[in-house]
């Protein structure tokens, strides 16, 4: 890492609620200006971890550092961060302007400077004309941006976002993603966002921290987490994934599914005959002419066809092995060109470079 101290460094964070272990040995380093997403299903510990960083929850073990300073023993008020909660927690009895000014009024700043800062922030989030309205008079997306402006007003070193978009409808969520990301880039403020929405994490984060049952499963840039999931959990949680039960072949780098042998991504070794799991994403399966003659080509029957707008999802079962079923996404136009329907037999290819391998024990859902 660079010589600059990490904006946030977690070392061995562990937390339990009576007998329930919420977090186990979390260590993580976040660089200044980075946008990090904690991604995971509910109950994975991502919100608890955020609240420990904020000092709103206290860990049983481990240290939190901010900018090199150990803040583990500091109460929330002394940690220098801004936070936006899922509910926004805007003060309903104060106008938008007073909400944004809230964190400035207790500092030794004169009223004119406060007013300037409030206007500046409201302009930044595009709400300058709503300054004198009450929060309840704004839409959900606007309230969200007020909460953001309020959190950013004292220019904190760190911005924490706890599922900030989950209460909004899909369209507003889309546009706010860009807006928050753009704002974060412009201000360069280190940001941690908690979300259970993998699409949101992929679209916004510099790095994603995928969490499951209190552990970090994988840390990496969105493309890497998507393309090279380190565990079956990550593969399943981020994007769609087909899993195929297989047996390790005597040939290194090959596995047997029913009566065919398939070559998979290099980097996984297993004793011949031991059970394993192969995985491939629906859009990585080649269908029809493109598959003919390719490596790992198989015959499959089309069981169901689901039209989903830009692409068509096919439910396939491999010919010769009734148990293995696959889902495969084909561009809608390409599928029309194939001229196939339900019940047809088609050639598919599972490109070795896209076919991942995991040990069978890890893959159990």
């Amino acid at each position: 890492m660079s010589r600059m101290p990490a904006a946030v460094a977690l070392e061995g964070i562990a937390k339990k609620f009576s007998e329930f272990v919420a977090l186990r040995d979390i260590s993580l380093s976040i660089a200044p200006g980075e946008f990090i997403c904690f991604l995971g299903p509910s109950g994975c510990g991502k919100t608890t971890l955020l609240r420990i960083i904020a000092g709103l929850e206290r860990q049983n073990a481990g240290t939190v550092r901010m900018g090199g300073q150990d803040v583990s023993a500091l109460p929330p008020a002394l940690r220098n961060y801004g936070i936006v909660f899922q509910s926004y927690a805007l003060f309903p009895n104060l106008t938008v302007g007073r909400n944004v000014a809230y964190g400035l009024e207790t500092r030794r700043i004169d009223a004119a400077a406060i007013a300037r800062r409030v206007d500046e922030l409201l302009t930044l989030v595009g709400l300058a004309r709503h300054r004198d309205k009450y929060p309840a008079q704004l839409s959900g997306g606007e309230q969200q941006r007020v909460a953001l402006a309020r959190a950013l007003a004292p220019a904190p070193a760190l911005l924490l976002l706890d599922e900030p978009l989950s209460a909004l409808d899909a369209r507003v969520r889309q546009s706010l993603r860009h807006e928050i990301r753009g704002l974060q880039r412009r201000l360069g403020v280190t940001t941690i966002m908690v979300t259970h929405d993998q699409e949101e994490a992929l679209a916004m984060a510099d790095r994603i921290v995928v969490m499951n049952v209190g552990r970090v499963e994988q840390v990496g840039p969105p493309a890497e987490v998507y393309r090279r999931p380190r565990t079956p959990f990550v593969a399943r949680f981020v994007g769609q994934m087909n899993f195929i039960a297989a047996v390790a072949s005597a040939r290194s780098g090959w596995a047997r599914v029913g009566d065919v042998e398939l070559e998979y991504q290099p980097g996984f070794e297993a004793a011949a005959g031991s059970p394993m799991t192969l995985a491939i994403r629906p859009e990585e399966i080649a269908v029809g002419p493109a598959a003919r003659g390719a490596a790992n080509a198989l015959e499959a029957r089309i069981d169901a066809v689901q039209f989903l707008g830009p692409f068509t999802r096919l439910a396939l079962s491999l010919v010769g092995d009734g148990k293995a079923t696959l889902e495969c996404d084909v561009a809608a136009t390409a599928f029309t060109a194939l001229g196939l329907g339900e019940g047809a037999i088609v050639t598919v290819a599972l490109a070795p470079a896209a076919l991942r391998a995991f040990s069978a024990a890890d893959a159990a859902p």
Partner: protein
Amino acid sequence: MSVPVRTAADLPDRVVRHRVSREDAIRWGLIAVFAGVLCLFLLYPLSQVVWRSLLDQQGRFIGGANYVRYFSTPAIAASITNSLFVSAASMLLTVGLAFVYAYALTRTRMPARGLFRVAAMLPLFAPSLVQAFALIYVFGNNGIITRTTGFNVGIYGAKGIILAEVFYCFPHALLILAAALAATDARLYDAARTLGAGPLKTFCTVTLPGVKYGLVSACFVVFTLALTDFGAPKAIGGKFSVMATEIYNQVSGQQNFSMGATVSVVLLIPAVLAFFVDRLVQRRQYALVTSSSKPLVPERHAWKDKSLLVYCGLIAGFIAAIYAVILVSSLVHRWPYNFGFTLKHYDFDTAGGYRSLWNSIRVAALTAVLGTALTFIGGYVVEKCRTAAAGPLYLLSVLPVSVPGMVLGLAYIFAFNAPGSPLNLLYGTLAILIVSNVVHYFTVGFLTATTALKQMDAEFENVGASLGVPFYRTFWRVTVPIALPSIIAISMYFFLNAMVTLSAVIFIVAPGTELAAVAVLLMDDAGDTAQAAAMSVLIIATGLVVRSLYWLAMRGVTARTQAWARSGSAPGDASA
């Protein structure tokens, strides 16, 4: 490479400590003050009652001998069965009558529902003595019915007490039942109808199950009120002794403080028991009304609406008649012989006269201020400052509701009139009356406050902290303004109850600190029934004026909260 999986046992139970800040010190200071007040003015006096019940008149420890004497002296022991009988009968009658009344108010299109709702609330503005007086004026030995028909129904005793308690407890039961009946989901009734259920079946399978917790709650509230009431049995009980009057007889009549303490401890048992059973039952309650519920809009039923109109008319008529009788008897020369108009009964010549009324108003106003501040701040530290002290403080705060007023009053004699104790400074002052009222009515104020605080976003304080704003500033800028409707409701609750209470103050009023409700009792004891009626009228009038001011204040607050566009969670008249 896998991370070692740890079990809960591998982690220390302690969490990382935060440095103690100035805010923490203030927080703990508030908790200490709150806990200190409850210990000094609730736990300590109550422990004195228990202790004194184990001593003889000379202060020697005699173990359970007082209890043996209590249960083996038929004349005193009868007060237990009498109390239980009167309370149970009052409970059944009141809840039955109030249920139908509440049903008419909430589930029908009966005309004048608003008027009936207001009429039923009248007994809240009068000491429980007043119901008994009115019954005596009508059915007593010199009552108007007895005089004109020559027929004496024998109102003194159990009959009279039960009837007086029914009127006294009616609004309390009605408030609970009307709230329970109002909280329903029209979709349940639509479902019942589409499944072909008739009106009776719908009532038994949808309506009753929906209000069962309200019914249980109303039963416990009425039972406890009737059990611990002192005014009505004192005024109309005659020779029929109940536990509350027995404490008074032992203490005031026979100066037997040990026996008074013994009866008090025994009276505490059913009251505390009723309280815990009620809490246990309420814990199983689930939310019937969710954000997706549809309000039930009652339909017109000519026959049902008319018969309920007659029913409500009768009950409201009785209640109005009580107040009419009291008002008239205070304004005529000599009820029921000379109905000439006079104001002479308002020239009080005993029991402190107008000074007692001013004292009452001052005590009630200060009780409202102090009680509201203490219960709201108490609710705040319990609800929002999550500390280890929250659990015990909550228990301490809900305990007062099960402490009968007589017991609290006696406890204050023991605690604040003990020779050589520095706490004696309080004795004989208005301050001790205010404190006893605050403690006596603490629980409802506290629960109203915690309910309002629970409805607020739990993250307000965290937002404040993240912005570096101290918690007390967020409390003042955000919490208090949002909870203002509840705060006003709590203060009115304290004021009205402090105006009418008798049981908690009867033992601790002193020359110079007479109170109006006590004056009513003393005037009646002295045979000045017309002056007692006149004083009652003034107490009721004060209550009605304050209630009207409350209504105006509420309108102002509502107008302001409407500016925030989201109608807050104003409890409105819930604790009227």
